């Protein structure tokens, strides 16, 4: 009887693991179907430990030449700043100094923001670096959603646990919560106004022509 129970638990575990992998695959396929954009709102923790209202627009062109742009609306101090992420490099534009800082993708980490913005546009890369577990389902205003928990495989992601809500009817993230090792909230963000859009690389790379370009290695 105990053996049967153990096998049943193991089978259930495998089934859950498979379904997380299946959900991830569905999300990736759905997100890779065409360029999309969404407004992300919520709270993020700043380096000084304070919590700030955040709002930014995320635009993604999926595929081989993947490109993502994160444009800040809030906090007000960051309005006008943006980040452009490609396979090879990351551009950071600072409005206040009119500077465009270009770094290799591998080096362009964000210290102190609690999480790496460069991960947001690439769901597959993010999930590959996490051990995922399906917690169950939840009803949201957008419809039924899967609740998935992720634990980083190494410490480089900058958070200790992640919880993500994935819409079942149109597999895509609805909300994401990040916590540190003491369970403190680092980011609590929801994806709004998701829509497929006709985005071009030129539009995502738009920057003030007179910005001072600084290349960092």
């Amino acid at each position, binding site marked *: 009887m105990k053996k049967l129970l153990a096998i049943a638990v193991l089978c259930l575990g495998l089934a859950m693991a498979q379904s997380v992998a299946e959900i991830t695959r569905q999300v990736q396929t759905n997100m890779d179907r065409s360029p999309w954009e969404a407004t992300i709102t919520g709270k993020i923790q700043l380096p000084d430990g304070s919590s700030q209202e955040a709002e930014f627009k995320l635009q993604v062109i999926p595929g081989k030449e993947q490109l993502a742009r994160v444009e800040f609306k809030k906090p007000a101090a960051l309005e006008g700043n943006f980040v452009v992420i490609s396979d090879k490099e990351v551009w950071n534009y600072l409005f206040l100094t009119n500077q465009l800082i270009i770094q290799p993708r591998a080096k362009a980490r964000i210290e*102190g923001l609690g999480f790496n913005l460069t991960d947001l546009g690439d769901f597959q890369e993010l999930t590959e670096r996490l051990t995922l577990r399906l917690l169950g389902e939840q009803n949201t205003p957008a419809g039924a959603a899967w609740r998935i928990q992720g634990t980083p495989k190494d410490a480089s992601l900058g958070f200790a646990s992640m919880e993500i809500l994935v819409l079942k009817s149109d597999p895509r993230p609805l909300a994401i919560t990040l916590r540190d090792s003491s369970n403190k909230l680092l980011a609590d963000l929801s994806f709004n106004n998701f829509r497929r859009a006709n985005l071009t690389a030129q539009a995502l790379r738009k*920057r003030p*022509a007179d910005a001072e370009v600084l290349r960092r290695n």
Partner: protein
Amino acid sequence: MAAIGPKIYRLLPIACCALFLSHATAQSLTFGLYGRLGPDNLTPTVEATLPLGDLDLSARLQRDALGLGLGGALEFSALGRLSYSARVSLGLVGWGLQAAAGGALGPLAANLEAAYSNTLRSRLWVGDEAEGGLKLGLGGRYRLDPRQTLGLQLGFKNDLAGIARGAAELSYALRQEQTYTFGLGVDDSRLYGLLGWRGELDEAGTLLEATLRAGQLGRLEAALTTPLDEELNNLKLHLTLSYPWAATLGVEVYSLLAEARYDNGFSLWIRYKLIFGGNP
């Protein structure tokens, strides 16, 4: 022969640069030729930048002078950055030191610069001002809200003749579709007002910025920049007109930079920039 000897000696910095480059992989190299109307006023210029761990080493050479600099920065992505640099210049006519630090973090940006030279800085590097002695500068910008920014610039100079001068400028920038700047300043007890306009002229992103300082001194600065491609190549034209009479007209296109200047004499500086390295 006697005349050729010293000339070769004076080109030594350029030879040093070639040696430096042959042993290192430069990130960027800029070759130039500077000429000023008058005898003995022609010099080649070479600028090189080289990554050195997390720092950037820079070298600039011209006839009779060389400068070596070291700079670095801490990057906080969209939150901001902090940068710092120091440079020493050595020439047959004197020497100079310069240090700078600057950064932006959230709503605040600030920069600080200190320089000292015992000769005119333009004699150590043709691109620098024709002034020597001590120079201190402090600048700051603060965002009141997403649309409004306050700016403050303070400067102090104590030139080679021991004459001290101070400068201060306060400005307010309002960003709507375009950005309008208003300000007041004082430079060596000459008062002036400041008016500025910056905005895009077309869908392609052509950008014009014009700033007029008028009063007991006058200076008009205008820059027009058009993106040429997605590789960050631009066509940039810039013009500065000031009273007492001085003028600069510059063109930058792809890797070519040309600048014509009138400042108690005509000069022309043409440069060509090459960018290398793993982060094209």
